[in-house]
């Protein structure tokens, strides 16, 4: 018995010491007096990735002082729900007052809240919450199909490699993240407009029909993706069961 206890002691001591060693190695110490009063998002919020995978871009936050100037050398720590990995978890802001971490989302589809923290002069905690979205298989399929068929009209962002068609359309489509509009449409309405085009819902024919191009499964996948990324989040209408 004592042998086991001893062993356990050694193991935990070892774990602790490696943990500490790593900390001192990878984390520069905060600069004395480097305190901010606000945390703002620089980039990386509202990203979408398949469950368990790393987000395409790192999450970058910036520590600002009261005047809104960036504070280099301020401590920042990230945390997230179970299953989320953050690399690195904590550190200090760089010369431009920013700190970045690579985020892998958990194993279940859904939304993950990442929290960034720093402390202000009064040693009070300052927090910033960011939301990221993990997609399951069906939603990943929809994501890919959206990229192939829909995105160039429904997304106004344009790159030289992929010029958006949004500005060319007389009637503007909604980006799929716009929950304010899309959440009001039921699954049957979405299915109808994707299958038969705009006129199916008395909307513009600039929205083409895809019922003879995409399969039923593919259209379901698109809807599932649209629901997954909507902001504010889409709430499934409760299932209705026959009373016994």
């Amino acid at each position: 018995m004592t042998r086991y206890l001893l062993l356990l002691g050694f193991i935990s001591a070892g774990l602790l010491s490696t943990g500490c060693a790593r900390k001192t190695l990878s984390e520069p110490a905060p600069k004395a007096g480097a305190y901010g009063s606000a945390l703002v998002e620089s980039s990386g919020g509202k990203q979408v990735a398949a469950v368990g995978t790393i987000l395409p871009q790192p999450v970058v936050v910036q520590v600002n002082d009261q005047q809104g100037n960036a504070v280099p050398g301020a401590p920042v720590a990230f945390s997230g729900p179970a299953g989320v990995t953050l690399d690195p978890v904590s550190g200090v802001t760089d010369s431009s007052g920013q700190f970045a971490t690579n985020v892998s989302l958990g194993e279940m589809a859904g939304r993950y809240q990442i929290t960034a923290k720093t402390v202000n002069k009064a040693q009070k905690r300052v927090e910033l919450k960011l939301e990221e979205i993990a997609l399951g298989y069906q939603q990943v399929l929809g994501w890919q199909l959206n990229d192939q068929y829909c995105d160039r009209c429904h997304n106004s962002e344009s790159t030289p490699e992929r010029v958006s068609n949004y500005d060319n359309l007389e009637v503007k489509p909604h980006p799929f993240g716009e929950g304010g509009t899309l959440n009001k449409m039921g699954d049957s309405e979405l299915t109808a407009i994707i299958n038969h085009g705009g006129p199916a819902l008395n909307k513009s024919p600039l929205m083409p029909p895809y019922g003879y191009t995409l399969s039923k499964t593919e259209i379901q996948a698109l809807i599932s993706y649209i629901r997954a990324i909507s902001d504010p989040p889409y709430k499934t209408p409760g299932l209705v069961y026959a009373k016994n």
Partner: protein
Amino acid sequence: MGLTSKFVSFWQQLFGDSVRAFGTVSLVLLISLAIAPAKNHFSEWRHYQKQYLKMIRGRGEAVTLQRHFQGDIQQVWLPELGVVDRCTTCHVGLKEASLVDVSTQPFRKHPVIPHSLDQFGCVMCHRGQGPATTVQEAHRSTLAWEQPVLPAKYIESSCGQCHRWELTGTPTLNEGRHLLTANGCVHCHTVKLPDGTTMKATDDPPSLSHIADKTSREWIFAWLKDPKAYAATATMPNFKFNDDEARDISAFLIANSTPVTGDTVGLNAKAAPDPSAGASLYGESFCASCHAVQNTAGNLVGGNVGPELTRVGSKVKPTWLQAWLRNPDTYDPETAMPHYRFNDQQVVTLAGFLQAKSDSDLLANVHLDPSTPEQIAHGKHLVTDYGCASCHEISGIKKPENFAPDLSRIGSKAVNQLIFSQGMPHTLPDYIAGKIRDPRASSPGLKMPQYTFSPAQIDSLTTALLSLNERSHSLPPALTVAGTPDSNYQPAGKAGKLMRDLACFSCHRINGHGGDMAPDLSWEGSSVQRQWLIDFLKNPNTLRPALIRRMPRFNLTDAEINELTDYIMTVYQSPAVDRDSMPLTGFSPTQVEQGRQLFYSKYACQSCHIVDPKNDKGYIGPTLTQVGSRLSSAWVYHWMKNPQALRPGTTDPNRNMSDDDARALTAFLMNQKGSAEAKKK
């Protein structure tokens, strides 16, 4: 009382007479009989089932759920797949649609997938121990079992066991497979695929047999030390050679190089007097369709078919560059670069422009003394030792066979056969990812070079490798979904030779062979009109306003253009479209007008296409202002009826059009001949 007498009296108490003996034996029997049910009663899975029942009691659909619930151990048994999965014993609600809102495991509904649980079970995709009935044994590698549950980030590897080809819903797997071939991993590592073929690398490392014609020893030295310092896009990994090693390898490669006749002939012509002529020529020739250059902001602009040219002036010898631009086939008959028919002044102008793309820092600190025979010999030794000839042709050195471990079944490698580096979790995925991230971590003597993959790329590669496992090799063929590997189609005759000279296949695909940057030309002869093709080859213009990569102008002679046009028009025909079945002109004005209305109102084609450049703005599809001079009417008609039948995968949606609508639209489109002046241009 001694110990013996104590024992004797105890014995007497239990078995002193027959009644006592009977009672005791019965008691022991009862207890031992009770052990199994008690174990069962207190087992983990029963605990979960009880929790489940408690959870559903509070729900609106409790009755339905209760009716679906089956107690005891549940099992999916699929003998032909070797699946015995008892996971559903605890994961009770996997098929209950109403449990989507439940996030506590093991009760969550399974997310939607294209396969049914009853047909595939669980471990086919998730790995783990199907027959186990405790959390530990099922999920982690306890006991002597090797197979823990697969982390979600690698789950697409399981799709890859059956699906041998690109699949829309599995971007990670697709990317991993692409990286394996595009980064040349399979030059050194053999990967035999379950269908019997061998994975082939798609990068094209240059031959080093004539390298002294092309570049200097100093450049080779700098490149060997760090390929990324020369080009951010370099796919050659870093072998971490020290200065002496780089010195000796460069000495050997220069000494071993033999000249190629005609590949270093300088020209007497003078560059164009206008200093911007080189840049213009580079732009007009659409070099950027294939080659990238880093701009001042540090972003790469251009394609990746050919090498990056940001610092090419620090690499190539001026006479070699001129000869290369005149005709690259002289130096490399297999090159993906087209043979532009530049005149001498153009060659000198373009070469001068490229030569100016140099970086004085790159070779500033490289000072090499003339090489010694020992250095050359040592260099040869290193070249052999590091397997350089696995990727590069090097005269006098044979391509090594099985230079690196075979990866055909790496996804089933037993953990006890792996050497983990310190701090690495002892699982196969962690091992593979760790090996790619830091190949020499477990021992500095290892030879695998260092790549610079992003964490996401490492996950993709690991996913692709995990799909290469025992199961993928032993699946019943009926379950596998085969791909369509590249054909080795080659066009015949004089035109075929011309097409290879122009490297058409670097960008275009024909009959299953070639690149995917430009349209597939397999049926081009059914699709276009002869005169349009002639004009296009003379002076290519882009059909899509939003496209930045374009077809270059090759400065072909009339005879060459005729040769190509004849071949394309006669050979690249679709069996489904008879080009001559419909006239190109002579549609009635009513039909044209009917087509116009269909185009703008019912089908709203202007959302993607431009017919009238003043009012239409659609950017996604090709511009149709001159479509009546470009396409055959039969092709247009069939396209209206079913675009995917003519070009699989096109995003132009199938509108399920009536014959009348298709005919009217064809009439309207064939009426778009373009203005006379636009045609002249």
